[in-house]
């Protein structure tokens, strides 16, 4: 177990190192970053001065090493637009994003898990059919369209919830629903097939044959085992939700990291873009590390399978 944890930690660090290469490369993509940073009509000597200031005349690997040593300490430089350390801006907006993605994930789980399980228990019923239609629609609806529809119906039409901004719980309902819908569809599908698989296992049949009440068999024995694969996808879903938050926050004017990122990209605020990508990727890696460790704790067979390979 300790060996596995250590290996998994090392692997996560490797991934973060790879992320840093891509984040670093983002700025150098167009050749000369000074051209991105300065207005088009900048004079030649200004460009030269800027190059010297940013250390762009050094060899690329020296620049990367410098970038990495600073990034590890959380120093991504000042945001061009706001003239504040990029990380400060992110930490100001991150709570809003975490609140939105957390609410989206909760909403997805609360609807999808019971729906998937019921669909599996009442297989081929009307409920099952309704569930699979919901899954198909949920997977086909782009988040920005669903967001606009929700605004049209529930904000403009019925006036139940605000259309934009972050002001109390009622403002969270529409963005969280829009963001969570896609994950809801995927989780419901997984829950259904997972439950079906477990229900077909020998130990469920044995428990039933032994005369244990159907309720206990379903909700105690089967459900526990069906929950295990769901834990891993929650980690992956979280990454998908963080990506989806970029668009959701733009539509609902939600003051989170996603909107900050879109704004930073359009104002060529490269230090801020780099910092945001790095922070979100780190968040994803850490969450998946935790999920993996929880997973091995829930299902000890996993460690043995991996160490054999």
């Amino acid at each position, binding site marked *: 177990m300790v060996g596995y944890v250590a290996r998994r930690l090392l692997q996560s660090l490797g991934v973060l190192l790879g992320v840093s290469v891509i984040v670093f490369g983002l700025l150098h993509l167009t050749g000369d970053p000074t051209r991105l940073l300065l207005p088009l009509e900048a004079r030649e000597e200004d460009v030269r001065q800027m190059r010297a200031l940013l250390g762009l005349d050094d060899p690329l690997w020296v620049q990367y090493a410098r970038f990495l040593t600073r990034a590890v300490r959380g120093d991504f430089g000042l945001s061009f637009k706001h003239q504040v350390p990029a990380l400060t801006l992110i930490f100001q907006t991150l709570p809003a994003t975490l609140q939105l993605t957390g609410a989206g994930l909760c909403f997805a789980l609360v609807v999808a898990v019971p729906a998937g399980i019921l669909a599996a228990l009442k297989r081929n019923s009307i409920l099952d059919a309704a569930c699979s239609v919901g899954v198909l629609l949920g997977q086909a609806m782009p988040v920005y369209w669903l967001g606009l*529809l929700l605004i049209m119906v529930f904000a403009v039409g019925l006036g139940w919830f605000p259309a934009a901004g972050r002001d109390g719980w009622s403002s969270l309902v529409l963005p969280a629903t829009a963001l969570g819908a896609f994950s809801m569809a995927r989780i419901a599908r997984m829950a259904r097939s997972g439950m079906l698989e477990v229900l077909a296992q020998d130990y469920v049949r044995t428990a039933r044959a032994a005369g244990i009440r159907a309720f206990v068999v379903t909700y105690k024995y089967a459900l526990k085992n069906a929950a295990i694969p769901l834990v891993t996808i929650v980690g992956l879903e979280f990454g998908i939700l963080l990506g989806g938050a970029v668009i959701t926050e733009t539509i609902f004017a939600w003051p989170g990291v996603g909107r900050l990122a879109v704004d930073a990209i359009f104002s060529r605020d490269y230090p801020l873009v780099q910092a945001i990508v790095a922070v979100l990727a780190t968040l994803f890696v850490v969450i998946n590390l935790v999920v993996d460790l929880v997973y091995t704790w829930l299902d000890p067979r996993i460690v043995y399978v991996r160490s054999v390979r």
Partner: protein
Amino acid sequence: MSVVAHTAAPALARRRRRVSFRAAFGLSVLLLMGGSAILAPQLAPWDPAKQMLLKRLRPPVWQERGLSQHPLGTDHLGRDILSRLLYGGRISLGVGLTAVTLSALIGVSLGLTAGFFGGRLDALIMRVVDVFLAIPYILLAMGVVFALGPSLGNVILVMGATRWVQFARIVRAEVLSIREREFVAGARARGNRSLRLLLHHVLPNALTPIIVVATLELAFMIIYESALSFLGLGVQPPTPTWGWMLADGRNYVASAWWLATLPGLAIMLTVLAVNLLGDWLRDTLDPRLTV
């Protein structure tokens, strides 16, 4: 045993019938969408970029103030929605298909290499896969497209370069089991070189999952393209795209519902059709596949 056989047979038949209905639905919607995209110049009643300011924001024909020349209404610049939807389909499907092809080329080559040669190369490629999984691809794509300039080619390039991971993972897993099979050992014993072995013996046997992933990824790419368009980083105007039309409609959610609703409906129908087809392909070709 007989009890099992009796309950299993009708269930299987029912399953087959339902699956094939879904597939037929998916295929016909897709053919309709594809056909109207290809024939857009012939089918579209108007030039999609033509502005008719006197006929701004007209609703679809079945509503009051609707005009019969504009069956699905007009937008805020008086452009015909139906014509724009038809032309937009060309971008969505065209970009989607090219981007999937590109990402399949990258992903399949890397997956084949990783699975077949194993060792350090495999470890390296799989770590790169992890890196790409960790970065929110939409942010990466936005950053890159913005830096390079939002042109048709760049959009396709970036979409292909950020989504190859799925292909690499599934192909690697498939190759790991194929390379242990006897026909591969036999081909090797006959003196086949590695490259020939890969292309003639391993790749054809990994084709099923590649086809399935490609279909499901196409659905994804269509959403991806319109998301970039929606954010203003897709193919640039005056070329009409569904995502761009949605973004235009954003400012009129209160007054002109059709502007944002119709392009979204087009995206959803197309994605739904492709997904249905992908599900059916997976269930028929290889039910054990989990993608």
